[in-house]
């Protein structure tokens, strides 16, 4: 054996035998003269020379190269048609030390996967894309590719590619070079030995850059497809040299790193981040701690921007702190102000069934339209709190307690229309006795850091309570329609 000097042997990045293949395990499934074999070899040799075999994950999507995993003795992930750059993005981010290759054909990358390649390139993913452009669909049997040349016939462009019907061949290297993030983009061709040597340098450079963590790299490889083009292998190579290169000029389209300062996110412990604190109490323990509270279903309604949803949340928060079972359900819609808004709050001593409040015990109506809309549904014996000095003249309610509280007016006097919902909260607590005032104070003071706003909140809560106590309830009892007029 020793009389032989091995000067050239197959790179160990390829399997010795292609055991993942069903038959003919000593040869590839590629046609004679196909460019994929050459491209595979350039990649495998570069990986070997750079010492990257163990770290490499090859992502192969749909097309003739779907079976790249037959040959590459590396980690392999097969992906859906066109999606390899998205898959590769997450493979790389999951294990930043890995070397991730997205190996794609022209239909895969430049047609069905256009969005994925553009955005992976634009994010500057630290992956390497090998884009094999042979101007035709191979695996599916010769249909038109986005890179098919003008006039070139295929099974789906039988009259030749017509710009008036199919548009022009798409130039990916040029397109992606218009983006900021990519660090290296070159187009090469497998037309002859000289060009193959240039392709070899480009492939290795791209992988070397990924190894250095430089960013997004892509090599577009013009490649012959003799079977589909119905050409002898040598003729197909000449066609690449004479025709394909004319449409897709070779060269380095991008070779620079974008300058930017990475922004890092401060780190926290899980418990702190998720607000996990204290001991988890059993239902019994919680119920035992419950102070004086009353179960109520409450609907809060008004204009968007009046703090409707927040008022509901504050009541639910208070109920929770008082160890009740609570739920808060918003009417949600496209984000905007001045539309109508309402939310349902349930304060209960038992597990809450429906969180929808269709017949509320308490209605807070911050404007007239919501009063008209929801008042007819208030439960007999229920309470309506209306944001005004008096009810509209045509409205009368039997069997309800109606309290007109000019919350907006009171809030304006305090100094900000923003606190009108807190005024109403004060009135609601006074009118229903469902939760202690001290809890409201605690929730409010925990809510705002701004001292001025905190003081206004405090005043608003007190003002709502006092207004109800002194101005409304006295008369409300006597009023024939339940209204404090």
């Amino acid at each position: 054996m020793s009389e032989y000097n091995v000067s050239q042997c197959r790179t160990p990045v390829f399997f010795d035998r292609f055991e993942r293949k069903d038959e003919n395990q000593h040869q590839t499934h590629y046609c004679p003269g196909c460019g994929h074999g050459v491209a595979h070899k350039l990649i495998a040799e570069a990986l070997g020379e750079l010492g990257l075999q163990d770290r490499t994950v090859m992502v192969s999507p749909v097309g003739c190269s779907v079976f790249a995993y037959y040959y590459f003795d590396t980690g392999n992930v097969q992906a859906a048609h066109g999606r390899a750059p998205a898959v590769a993005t997450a493979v790389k981010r999951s294990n930043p030390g890995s070397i991730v290759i997205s190996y794609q054909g022209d239909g895969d990358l430049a047609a069905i996967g256009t969005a994925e390649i553009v955005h992976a390139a634009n994010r500057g993913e630290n992956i390497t894309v090998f884009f094999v452009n042979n101007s035709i669909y191979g695996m599916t049997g010769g249909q038109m590719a986005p890179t098919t040349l003008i006039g070139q016939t295929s099974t789906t462009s039988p009259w030749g590619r017509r710009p008036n019907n199919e548009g022009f061949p798409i130039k990916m290297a040029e397109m992606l070079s218009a983006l900021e993030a990519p660090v290296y983009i070159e187009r090469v061709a497998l037309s002859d030995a000289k060009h193959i040597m240039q392709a070899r340098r480009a492939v290795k450079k791209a992988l070397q850059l990924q190894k250095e963590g430089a960013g997004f790299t892509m090599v577009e490889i013009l490649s012959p497809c003799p079977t589909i083009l119905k050409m002898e292998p040598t003729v197909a190579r000449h066609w690449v040299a004479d025709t394909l290169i004319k449409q897709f000029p070779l060269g380095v389209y991008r070779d620079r790193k974008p300058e930017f300062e990475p922004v890092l996110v401060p780190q926290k412990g899980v418990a702190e981040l998720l607000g996990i604190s204290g001991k988890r109490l059993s239902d019994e323990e919680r119920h035992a701690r419950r102070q004086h509270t009353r179960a109520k279903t409450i609907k809060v309604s008004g204009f968007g921007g009046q703090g409707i949803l927040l008022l509901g949340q504050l009541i639910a928060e208070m109920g929770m702190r008082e160890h009740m079972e609570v739920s808060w359900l918003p009417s949600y819609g496209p984000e905007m102000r001045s539309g109508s808004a309402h939310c349902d709050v349930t304060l209960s001593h038992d597990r809450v069934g429906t969180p929808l409040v269709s017949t509320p015990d308490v209605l807070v109506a911050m404007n007239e339209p919501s009063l008209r809309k929801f008042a007819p549904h208030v439960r007999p014996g229920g309470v309506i709190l209306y944001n005004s000095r008096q009810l509209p003249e045509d409205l009368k309610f039997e069997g309800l307690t109606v309290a007109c509280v000019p919350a907006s007016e009171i809030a304006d006097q305090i100094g900000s229309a923003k606190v009108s919902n807190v005024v109403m909260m004060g009135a609601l607590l006074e009118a229903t006795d469902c939760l202690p005032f001290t809890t409201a104070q605690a929730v409010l003071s925990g809510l705002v850091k701004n001292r001025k706003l905190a003081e206004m909140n405090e005043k608003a809560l007190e003002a709502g309570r006092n207004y109800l106590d002194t101005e409304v309830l006295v008369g409300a009892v006597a009023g024939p329609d339940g209204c404090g007029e």
Partner: protein
Amino acid sequence: MRQLCKGNVAVVKAAIMAGCRSFYGYPITPASEIAEYAALLIPQVGGTFLQAESEVSAINMVYGAAAAGQRVMTASSGPGISLMQEGISYLAGAELPCVIADVMRAGPGLGNIAPEQSDYFCMTKGGGHGCYRNIVLAPSSVQEMASLTMLAFELADKYRNPAVLLADGFVGQMMEPLDLELVEPVVPQKPWAVKGDLETRKNLISSIHLTPDLMEAHIRHLEEKYSECERNECRSETYRTEDAEVLLVGYGIVSRILRSTVDLARQHGVKAGLFRPISLWPFPSKALATAAKSAVKVMVVELSTGQMVEDVKLSINGSMPVEFYGRVGGNVPSAEECQAELFARMEVLV
């Protein structure tokens, strides 16, 4: 200690507690808070959040992260879920675990953003191509948005399969107390993953099997796995079914409404009970048949024109009438409406 939390936010918190450090998504109402809170929280514990260019890309990123051995999730709603179906089929075919939260909205097409339960078919029956199943869990409260998210990660890893948290706009948007306890997540070893190292160099993640025999063997393997899942993972809950003459069946937000309907009906002297499937696939058929034992009639309520009702009928297998009441378009019936519909369908009993 309890915290008042939105359903969608609870999903993210639970995912972090379950050891999920990878989130790939695309915003869509009413699921957007899941992506927003993932963007805010996951990077703070050293994880990856990425807003993809589309749901198609998002689910394929999920595929990539799952292939690389991560606990990974995404979230979406109707139109986005439709776009993800290709990827979900690939995930199931390649046996990759992941969690997908679907906060359902009204459809078909763009529909609207209000709650519906019309993705039942596409999630439990397989909205993508091929013979596969998703494990589907249906939360009905904020606490369950968290607990079922954690369970979804566990089951996804156990069966190497996508697990779906099938919520609706209401459960996603509502706020309730959330009680979390810090526990170290138990994440199983994944020797099959492709991590870009010597140990996993031999591994291949793929769903392609070229020859019919190999393809059939793979599908049979999946089938066996799904059977095992059906044997082990059915989950459900009952309320006042012991003496129920009429059994109400609903999941998610509807089960909450029906719980109140049961109480209302009983106040009117009708012995109603509630059966609530928690796992929609596997569907708890046996438990349902047991719960219906004392009943003479079943009524299914859904926010759809009738999807789960088909599985209920299969479970009941013709032994009693199965009535259906559905609201759609974002309309949600009150407990009182459900009671009225129930009474209208059971004149014989009242």
